[in-house]
């Protein structure tokens, strides 16, 4: 069993609420869930949709075909009806869209009039719609009712009751009328699942890592990280500040980090472009910082609400001058959660900027999991505080050490002063100009540290046939789709996936043998959501390996499973 439900309509019609609730119902019913969102850069009108796939087997991508379309307006039917599967159904409100569609696949449920009849207003139409989907699927209504009770707790019993009434009516109506529905959804086995998207996972990872300061300027599709952290600010003692611009955002975070707290900022490509000077400042002053860059298609404003992976090379080399950094590109919310934790640990341990490269596809896609293992989360306080700091005879912020790591004290917690400088500086942090100190500092700050950092980087994740002839290579948000592609195609071909989420520094090829696998493969295909094949280029700069097969998509939309499979089969 593997169904795709799409809720489609105009911005402002509440399709995100319907989609969000349905996903939650499926996850609580212990199905595997994967959702993705397609929305325009406008607040009302236009055409958006919310796509949910749920199954009793793991799912980690979307498909082109739709089993159940919830159409909130007429345009949605026109746009999506060709995507229906053989027994696919459309549910809609004929009186609302002012047209009745003929054909077995159309189910007219009068969302509005049911709502109005029962509650006196059309406000609960979406509740009716949501419940009718559950009816069509032949699922239970209990879980949805539970969700209604939770979400409207603050609004009072009356609202809860009205919603429950509306949901029951929609549900019953659908069951009664949907004679053509052939859906068969087993009752859940296993435990209810956690459902989380990429932005939330980064925010959660940050809080779990002791992040106490988040300054940012709103920018789609990264704003979700800020919103999540802000929603927990009070409870978890976090300062979240909306800066006047991105330059300020990164400099504030650096100030907070200097003063002794774990600090982070987040943005998308255009905002990151403005942070580049600050990134270089972090490098020079050895101030830890974590930066989430949630990509959207560029250049410039591009397609603000869509997805792309075209900022990779930019991030690898952003900033004037040379300084160490780490770049992670999680492939799933789970990876985002753990890698954000790792980002904070490495940032603090090596006193460097760590970049988390995500994209709109990952940011807005929900994945379901049994749970996260919190014992995997680490926390070490790498700073010199209080007594330990006071006890020092002398203190030099940029002390030359063999491993390049200097003691990082919290200013004010001891009598010593903490000095750092964006100019080249001596061990004390004071400005210098001589060649000798310069060389020592570069060797310490860049060379010594970079080698140790490389040891911290895990090799790519290899999945599938150990002796695969076809290796699909990808990074970041390509993880889910590549994994399922391998699952599908492995019955036909000796195929595997190599997924990079720890991008920079490049995992040591002396210590890990993944390049051997790539060289042994008959066909290595680099699959990326950009036009120029940035990862392929990066891999070549690190290893000399040249892909002769590449699949690139740059229309701002994620790959659909069947689409990618088709493209792969075409070229192999």
């Amino acid at each position, binding site marked *: 069993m593997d169904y795709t439900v799409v809720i489609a309509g105009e911005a402002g019609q509440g399709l995100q609420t319907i989609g969000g609730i349905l996903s939650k119902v499926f996850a609580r019913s212990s199905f595997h869930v994967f959702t993705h969102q397609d929305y325009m850069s406008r607040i009302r009108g236009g055409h958006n949709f919310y796509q949910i796939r749920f199954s009793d087997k793991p799912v980690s991508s979307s498909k082109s075909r739709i089993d159940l379309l919830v159409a909130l307006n007429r345009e949605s039917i026109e746009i999506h009806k060709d995507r229906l599967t053989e027994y696919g159904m459309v549910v809609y409100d004929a009186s609302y869209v002012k047209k009745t569609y003929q054909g077995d696949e159309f189910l007219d449920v009068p969302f509005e009039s049911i709502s109005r009849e029962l509650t006196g207003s059309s406000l609960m139409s979406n509740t009716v719609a949501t419940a009718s989907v559950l009816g069509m699927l032949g699922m239970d209504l209990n879980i949805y009712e539970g969700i209604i009770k939770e979400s409207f707790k603050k609004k009072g019993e009356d609202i809860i009751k009205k919603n429950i009434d509306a949901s029951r009516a929609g549900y019953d109506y659908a069951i009664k009328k949907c004679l053509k529905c052939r859906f068969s959804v087993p009752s859940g086995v296993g435990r209810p699942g956690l459902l989380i998207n990429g932005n939330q996972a980064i925010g959660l990872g940050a809080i*779990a890592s002791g992040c106490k300061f988040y300054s940012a300027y709103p920018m789609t599709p990264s704003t979700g990280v800020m919103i999540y952290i802000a929603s927990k600010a009070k409870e978890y003692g976090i300062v979240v500040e909306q800066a006047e611009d991105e330059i300020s955002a990164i400099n504030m975070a650096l100030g907070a980090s200097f003063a002794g707290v774990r600090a982070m900022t987040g943005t998308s490509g255009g905002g990151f472009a403005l942070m580049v000077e600050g990134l270089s*400042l972090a490098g020079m002053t050895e101030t830890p910082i974590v930066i989430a860059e949630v990509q959207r298609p560029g250049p410039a404003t591009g397609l603000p609400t869509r997805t792309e992976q075209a900022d990779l090379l930019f991030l690898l080399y952003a900033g004037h001058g040379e300084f160490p950094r780490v770049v992670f590109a999680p492939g799933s919310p789970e990876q985002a959660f753990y890698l954000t934790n790792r980002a904070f640990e490495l940032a603090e341990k090596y006193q460097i900027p760590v970049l988390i490269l995500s994209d709109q596809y990952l940011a807005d896609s929900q994945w379901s999991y049994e749970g996260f293992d919190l014992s995997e989360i680490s*926390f070490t306080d790498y700073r010199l505080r209080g007594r330990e700091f006071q006890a020092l005879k002398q203190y030099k912020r940029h002390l030359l050490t063999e491993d390049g790591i200097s003691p990082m004290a919290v200013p004010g917690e001891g009598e010593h002063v903490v000095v750092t400088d964006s100019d080249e500086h001596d061990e004390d942090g004071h*400005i210098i100009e001589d060649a000798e100190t310069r060389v020592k500092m570069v060797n310490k700050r860049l060379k010594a540290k970079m080698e140790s950092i490389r040891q911290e980087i895990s090799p790519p994740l290899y999945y599938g046939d150990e002796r695969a002839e076809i290796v699909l290579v990808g990074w970041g948000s390509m993880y889910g789709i590549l994994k399922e592609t391998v699952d599908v195609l492995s019955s036909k071909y000796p195929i595997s996936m190599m997924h990079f989420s720890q991008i920079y520094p490049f995992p040591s090829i002396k210590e890990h043998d993944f390049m051997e696998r790539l060289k042994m493969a008959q066909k290595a295909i680099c699959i990326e959501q950009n036009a120029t094949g940035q990862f392929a280029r990066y891999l070549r700069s690190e290893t000399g390996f040249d892909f002769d097969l590449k699949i690139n998509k740059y229309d701002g939309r994620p790959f659909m499973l069947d689409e990618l499979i088709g493209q792969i089969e075409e070229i192999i």
Partner: protein
Amino acid sequence: MSLDRELYKGQTPAWCPGCGNFSILETLKEALSELQIRPHQVTLVSGIGQAGKLPHYMRCNTFNGLHGRTLPVATGIKLANHEMLVIAVAGDGDCYGEGGNHLIHAIRRNINVKLFVHNNQIYGLTKGQSSPTSLQGMVSKTQPFGSLSEPLNPLAMAVALDCSFVARGYAADREYLKYLMKEAINHRGFALLDILQPCVTFNKINTYQWYAERIYRLDDSYNNTDRKLAFETALQWGDRIPTGIIFRNNKAVFEEKIPVLKERPLKNNFNPPEDLQTLLKEFY
């Protein structure tokens, strides 16, 4: 009892002999010592420029960051540790040119940071281009037709933005400057202290003599809580240039409005939360 000024001793300044920055440096040390603020209790945040080098010439916590970005860094530090005295030391190009946007928003926030601007009406370190406060007509190698823009009046702008402390000092009037620095430091809220600073090498217009002929101290009867009067006073610039506290108010301070900072500085709260399970549960 003032603290021993040797406590603040730093590197030898690389400024030109006669530069107005020397008096600002010495006055700042005096002010801190008289206020008994020890070097580790204050953080100086500076940008790039001659002014930006000041923190290296004394001893105290220092973040010498980028040109124009003193205020965001200072804001971050203050939010992470509101028990720390945070002073941003900036040049006029630094803070009114490159960093102009941050000034507007730091004033709006009313974060309890002190901003001391070494206003020499010129870009010193980059060798004499005109700055946002340069007088119209000042010719430089990058402005062959002279500076064509109206000089920025930072004080009038600050008053318009309802800045909670707005003052002007003069580098060569050290006693008064010290008083203004102390007042700014003691004020609760954002304080802008614009310090007229002769640049003996590049600014051949606004010299010690030019300033001396024009500068006067606001007298005691001046009511610095009257915003309209403050605006008029801030507009005075010509034959007579007022120094003193032009405007002050007692509005609420930014960091005091953040509930999270009520009990202790953020930096003391560095451990990750223990009840992560609670957070996770919401996703089920």
